[in-house]
């Protein structure tokens, strides 16, 4: 899937990938890739700017930690991030339900 198609939803997807617990950047990327069955294959380097932006907005918090012999920046949802994720999820469900309903093939008119 092209990066532009994903753009408006990337924030919600990143927040969602942290819902189960803290993760570092590469693990977030792998979660997006495997969680979408390989559909979301962004250049990995572009996930990091999005994480910095979310951190600046106070939705996630990054801290450096030593993990398996390597320094990694580990991100965690803040309570504002959790609230935003809930809101984002709700509006996506409404939107996708509406699109699904509209894209249903119309029933064929009954032949007289």
């Amino acid at each position, binding site marked *: 899937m092209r990066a532009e198609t994903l753009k408006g939803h990337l924030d919600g997807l990143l927040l969602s990938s942290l819902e189960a617990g803290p993760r570092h*950047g590469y693990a977030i990327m792998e979660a997006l890739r495997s969680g979408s069955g390989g559909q979301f294959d962004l250049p990995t380097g572009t996930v990091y700017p999005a994480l910095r932006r979310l951190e600046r907005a106070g939705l996630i918090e990054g801290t450096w930690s030593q993990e398996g012999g390597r320094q*990694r*920046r580990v991100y965690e949802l803040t309570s*504002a991030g959790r609230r935003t994720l809930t809101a984002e999820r709700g509006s996506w469900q409404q939107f996708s339900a509406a699109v699904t309903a509209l894209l249903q093939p119309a029933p064929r008119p009954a032949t007289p």
Partner: protein
Amino acid sequence: MTGNPAVEAYLHAAADSMPGPRRERSDILAELRSGLLDAIDAHRATGLQGHAATEAAITEFGNPRQVASAFRPHLAMIQARHTAVALTATGPLVGLLWAAAAVASHITLRHAPPWQWPGAPPLSAAAFPAIAAALLILITSTVITIAATGKLSRWLPASPRIAAAAAATAGFTAVAADLAILALLASQLASAPGTLDPIPVAAATTASLTRLTLARRAARSCLAVRATLT
């Protein structure tokens, strides 16, 4: 350092097109380095050997210049924020030092406003409203910058170009305010040198000169970062 020349070359290429505050840049590069090493490990786990794993990781990350340019809006926001925070932290101190200098020079005990003192320089009547206007612009642009670049950006999605412009405005206005007050001081010293208390006036002058230099540099950095945004 990773000891992996291809990774270091990638980071070097990214760093070259990434202007902004030094500490934030090096933190970002450290994060990219650790991510690239994770990616190399992941590719090794799928069976790629040595250099092939590194190549695959670098391809996966994407063009380093493109990655760097994706960071530029964030770096502009951080540059703007640092400038605004520094101005907020130093502004009251500079103001207090000038107030102390005024009190020590018994300016507050005189019954006439400063521009009516004996020997008041001709432009001093204009300097005070100019300083007041500068302070108003300075405070407004600082507040805008801080709101646009921090947690409030969730509700106020401002563009990094606007944030950097607001921060640069705040910086240059601080420079203008310092220059105006120093000009006023110079003309007062020239026309009536005995009316001022030298030590507090020297302290306030030093503070203003220091702030002026730093504010000018910060404002120019904001403009430089802003110029790299497309």
